[in-house]
């Protein structure tokens, strides 16, 4: 007996929501970044599930590209965080709100 696809989708909806809530609530920029990774993983799980449902490999190709973009995003984002936290080790997301345009 195989698991119904709906359960995979519900699980990824819960994972995405947990990530989104963490992004809204937490103030440490590193933890906020980890929550973004959680949301990306939820989306990846959805892509793989639909790739399985529709019997089409394109969903898995998209997940491959999401992985690459996530890696690039982490590198640049951590560079920014290092630049900020080196100057002020206790900085939170609120302290850099002056960066807004």
């Amino acid at each position, binding site marked *: 007996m195989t698991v119904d696809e709906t359960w995979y989708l519900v699980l990824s909806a819960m994972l995405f929501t947990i990530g989104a809530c963490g992004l809204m609530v937490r103030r440490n920029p590193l933890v906020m970044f980890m929550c973004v990774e959680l949301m990306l993983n939820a989306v990846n799980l959805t892509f793989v599930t639909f790739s399985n449902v529709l019997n089409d490999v394109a969903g898995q190709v998209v997940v491959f590209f999401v992985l690459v973009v996530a890696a690039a995003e982490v590198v640049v984002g951590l560079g920014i965080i*290092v630049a900020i936290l080196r100057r002020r080790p206790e900085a939170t997301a609120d302290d850099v709100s002056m960066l807004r345009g």
Partner: protein
Amino acid sequence: MVDTVVFLVAAVVILVGALGVIFSRNPVHSALMLVMTLFGVAVLFVAQGAHFLAAVQVIVYAGAIVVLFLFVIMLLGVDTAENLSSEPLAGQRPAAAVVAVASVGLLAVLAVRAVQVSTGAEATTLPLDSERSNIAVLAEVLFTDYLFAFEVTSVLLVIAVVGAVVMARRPRPAATDELEDDGSDGDDLGVERHTQTEAELA
């Protein structure tokens, strides 16, 4: 039966890890909980036949990205416990809880509807067949239909590397700038003097 047990165990691992990420007071614990979630997602990738992506998930995410997180945390020494009991913005957490319930409900309804609506139309790229391996099918599509996107991806990675190096570099102190400028000016002057003496000699 086995599939159901695998799914349930992986789901519990994923959700516990995700909740651990957002409820840990210490960023190091958050990063380790993130590893747990990523492994759970990799297990579900295997359960759905995406073997290559499961391997990449473990190698790239758990191997590289989380290590990068831990590296930054320990490099900067920000691994002190954070006080989560105070709420700087009044009403933020109740609002976040309301948004969470609403969005998980909406997304779940959307997911159920999407599975019902899916028409079973034929695959536009390549179908996942059981005779060829997952890697072979994925590679064929990636290097034919998605070749341009794949090449652009390499450009993106180069840009990311250059950007990270530029941002993470320590800005050069002003004193060394002046010293280097003086040195180069001196060299220029020396060259000019040398040519002048040559001209005089001639």
